[in-house]
């Protein structure tokens, strides 16, 4: 039997959805409440790490393939850089908050407000979550060549 015991599997399958939702909430509401891209990304990654610990590595990879994770990682990085360069192109300087100064200036304390900050939060959340999950996954694949003995 792969993974941990039946109790851990059952509880994990209930809790993983809630953790994922909480991570999405922290990322999306990062400009209103405490939190943001870094914290939300760590929570999103911890959801999949829980899946990996409870059900085994194969199940986690079937759920979220490593190629997809690496693509999400690169997507987050490119999105963040794109926001920076769009600020340079539209507003005239690197990382300027062109959405807030320009067309769509939302009310403060509303979900859609603060210009590029929620978009940056989403980009950072994708980036941090994918990177952390990938590091943990790769570390779990790694096995030393000769455990406890010399090779020669």
């Amino acid at each position: 039997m792969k993974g941990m015991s039946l109790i851990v599997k059952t509880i994990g399958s209930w809790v993983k959805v809630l953790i994922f939702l909480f991570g999405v909430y922290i990322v999306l509401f990062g400009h209103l409440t405490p939190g943001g891209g870094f914290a939300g990304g760590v929570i999103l990654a911890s959801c999949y790490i829980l899946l990996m610990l409870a059900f085994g590595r194969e199940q986690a990879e079937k759920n979220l393939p490593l190629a997809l994770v690496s693509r999400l990682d690169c997507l987050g990085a490119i999105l963040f850089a794109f926001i920076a360069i769009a600020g340079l192109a539209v507003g005239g300087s690197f990382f300027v908050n062109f959405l807030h100064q320009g067309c769509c200036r939302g009310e403060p304390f509303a979900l859609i407000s603060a210009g590029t900050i929620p978009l940056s939060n989403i980009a950072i959340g994708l980036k941090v979550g994918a990177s952390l999950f990938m590091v943990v996954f790769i570390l779990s694949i790694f096995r030393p060549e000769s455990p406890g003995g010399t090779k020669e």
Partner: protein
Amino acid sequence: MVIFYILLMFIVIAAIIAVETKDLLSSVICVGAIGFGGSLMFLFLRAPDIAITQIVVEVLGLIILIRATISRDLTFIAGDREFFGMVVSIVIIFVIFLAGMRVFETLPEFGTSIFSIAPDAPSRTYIKDGLSGTGAANLVSAIILDFRAYDTLGEASVLFTAVIGATVILRKKSRKLLEETDE
């Protein structure tokens, strides 16, 4: 403004030496000099927190790189420790100690506001114009993703580099390929 050009020249010269020199150990030391020049720049730009982080990272990286290169490169330090060198290093350590004492004397009383000694500190701008300038209710988000988003871009690239390093060092395929070519 002149100090930045001087530091920039220092960094560029150190980078050229680090690439061009044949000796691994001096190359590593030049890389360290680049980092310390960068931390001095942060200090003159009134970002002491980032300067401290930069110095810590530089010292750790320098120690690890020297430890990694010193066994590979044949740099022997022959003979006993010289008396003159020891005296010079003790004097330098004492001077740094005195400068540190002076720095601690100029620090404001614990708990007082930073505005009492630096009325034009950038944090006043953050607090005053944070909501109207960015529209974000969470001021921390406003600072890290708007006022200092360049810093966050650096952090994201650090994370990206860390993932690339872990992937390259720990992947399975290359290890097998390496072993086959070795045998």
